[in-house]
């Protein structure tokens, strides 16, 4: 069956063209053949579907917050074709059977493609390595204890070495828990004025420094998740120069919000790592431009409304953002001329693929037909009530954003149509 998507523009061009897709692959551009199905792109810009390396889909065990159906539908609505889910579920994804069942269920759902990450250590306790080879065989895409920090450096070292032998990377929530203590926000002027326990930037920087050294020691690939501080970014920059096989991601919320947002004591803004300062946000953006940052990831972390209405000490960490990440970044940084659309798309797609050693996505003949159409011309307000995610709150609610996905195809199938 041949699908034609007509009246679409390639990035950087105003020409309306047609993309042909057959059997889940890109067949070519502007073919003379007739398609059995046609979709009118109405002038939208086409790009490879986005890749998410860091989403909390909460299944199994916390389905009141999110499940595969809601989370992957939200991802498709956000323009994502592939999602790496975090293993800090209940039970933890440290068993090959869970990996298999997650992949099978996601396949049946038909939204974004799921690539589960598995726990690096049993129960994510940081003590004993999980059965990494069996987890890989079941389909695990990477290993991480995210949700927790890896306090034992030797366990991380052995895990990285073992995973490296399997050809997979380890990703880390790099934060020294003994320095973080009970911090619920960035430690600084704002936390002291608000009287809230602070989490110092040094907690991240100190841990990143340790982990970069382990990457140098082992030569094993290490991916550092959700960098939030200028100092930690600088350590990654130096580590890369020294030849450490380290990659890193930053999240849209750390680029667009600061600890000033906490002044209203709204736990919606409580995230881990915390929202930092304006200087940190600017440094992270510099890291995007100079290539220190390899990719953008959302750290989509849905919670129930009731949980987020608890007080600042009790409320859980996390913001749901998978449905707004691209429009947010496009509006704030491309529309304002701070970064090119090509570069932004690279951070959302090819950058992620390079981190994972996956084939770099493209729209050329023969490529897998993971495709997104983006409406760059019209704005729409963020409306959490319309989210596919079960989490119906957003720091950007009401913001007028451009760049909303209008169609997402995964393996040539329609996963989302706006």
């Amino acid at each position: 069956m041949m699908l034609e998507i007509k009246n679409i523009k390639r990035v950087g061009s105003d020409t309306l063209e047609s993309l042909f897709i057959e059997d889940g692959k890109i067949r070519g551009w502007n073919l003379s053949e007739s398609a059995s199905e046609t979709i009118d792109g109405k002038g939208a810009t086409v790009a490879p579907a986005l890749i998410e390396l860091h989403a909390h889909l909460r299944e199994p065990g916390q389905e009141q917050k999110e499940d595969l159906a809601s989370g992957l539908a939200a991802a498709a609505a956000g323009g994502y074709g592939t999602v790496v889910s975090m293993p800090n579920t209940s039970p933890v994804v440290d068993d090959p059977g869970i990996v298999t069942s997650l992949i099978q269920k996601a396949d049946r759902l038909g939204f974004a493609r799921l690539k589960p990450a598995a726990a690096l250590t049993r129960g994510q306790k940081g003590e004993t390595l999980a059965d990494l080879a069996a987890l890989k065989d079941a389909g695990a895409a990477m290993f991480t204890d995210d949700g927790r920090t890896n306090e034992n450096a030797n366990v991380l070292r052995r895990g990285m070495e073992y995973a490296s032998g399997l050809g997979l990377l380890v990703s880390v929530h790099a934060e020294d828990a003994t320095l973080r203590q009970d911090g619920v926000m960035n430690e600084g002027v704002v936390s002291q004025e608000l009287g809230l326990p602070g989490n110092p930037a040094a907690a991240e920087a100190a841990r990143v420094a340790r982990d970069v050294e382990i990457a140098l020691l082992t030569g094993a690939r290490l991916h550092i998740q959700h960098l939030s501080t200028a100092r930690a970014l600088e350590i990654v920059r130096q580590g890369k120069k020294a030849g450490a096989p380290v990659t890193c991601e930053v999240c849209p919320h750390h680029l667009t919000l600061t600890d000033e947002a906490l002044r209203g004591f709204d736990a919606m803004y409580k995230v881990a790592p915390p929202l930092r300062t304006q200087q940190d946000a600017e440094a992270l953006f510099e890291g995007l431009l100079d290539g220190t940052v390899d990719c953008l990831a959302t750290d989509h972390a849905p919670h129930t409304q009731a949980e987020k209405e608890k007080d600042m000490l009790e409320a859980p960490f996390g913001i749901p953002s998978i449905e707004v990440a691209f429009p947010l970044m496009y509006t704030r940084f491309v529309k304002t001329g701070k970064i090119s659309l090509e570069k932004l798309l690279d951070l959302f797609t090819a950058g992620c693929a390079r981190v994972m050693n996956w084939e770099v996505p493209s729209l050329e003949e023969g490529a897998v037909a993971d495709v997104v159409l983006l409406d760059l011309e019209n704005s729409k307000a963020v409306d959490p009530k319309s989210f596919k995610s079960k989490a119906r709150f957003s720091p950007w609610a009401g913001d007028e954003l451009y760049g909303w996905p209008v169609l997402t195809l995964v393996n040539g199938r329609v996963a989302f149509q706006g």
Partner: protein
Amino acid sequence: MGTGVKHLLDFQGWTVEGIQGILETADVMKEVLERPVKKVPALQGITVCTAFFENSTRTRTSFELAARRMSADVLTFAAGASSLSKGESLRDTIETLNAYKVDAFIVRHHASGAAHQVAKFSGKSTINAGDGRRAHPTQALLDAYTMLKEFGKLEGLKVTIVGDILHSRVARSNAELLDLLGADVTLCGPATLLPKELQKGRVKLTNDMQAAVKDADVVMALRLQQERMNGGFLPSMSEYALTYQVNERLLELAKDHAIVLHPGPMNRDLEISGSLADSERSRIIAQVEYGQAIRMSVLYHLLVGKK
């Protein structure tokens, strides 16, 4: 006569004039408390809810007595015996209490910002009776009032606050208020309990007790919050007492007329020597007494004319 301000959560949005109004009305309330019949009808028909999510005896009783002496009805809510222990959220608890047609909430909570949440969830006048490390504005007002009664003015007064500044809502509120009213505030304590970010305006920070107390008009000792000392902030209680205890010997460095305050409850002979607490320099009992008048004044300013 109101302040035009609906809540007392901290001193954000408050003017010097608004605060002076509260301090002046406290004189009237103090006079009421000296009468044989200590009751006025100012808050008749108004229902005040004391919502205490954290243990407190003196602040709760002070507020309840203040409200009753102004003829308000008082709904007492204590978290220990509530549905909170059954998992009910702060929002649901407040909305339930609000359904009893409460006119104002007086809130104490272990989390900074909880009083802001109560104000948002209830929409009613809310008084912060202490939230986490953040603020305890009526304590700061009664401290300022105690100083005012002693010295007649606050401007230029050298006030030294000693102890666990990091965990202290009393220190934060006092620094905020006294700076606003023109006093020179010095915060003193070991470096682990003295966040450098609090240095601004006329508020100075030091680890040096001798320098901090020298020529002070007021020295306030804070309770060492041993229950929050799980982060290795201090080598030992005895070392703290040796280095940062407010005692007679130290007070010799202060001005001759210097007074000593403590927000209570005290750890005698830890942060303050027992003999100094009982001495003629101490105004610790006066603070408690003035606290009543201040809380009556705050209730009056926020609630009279609002119903």
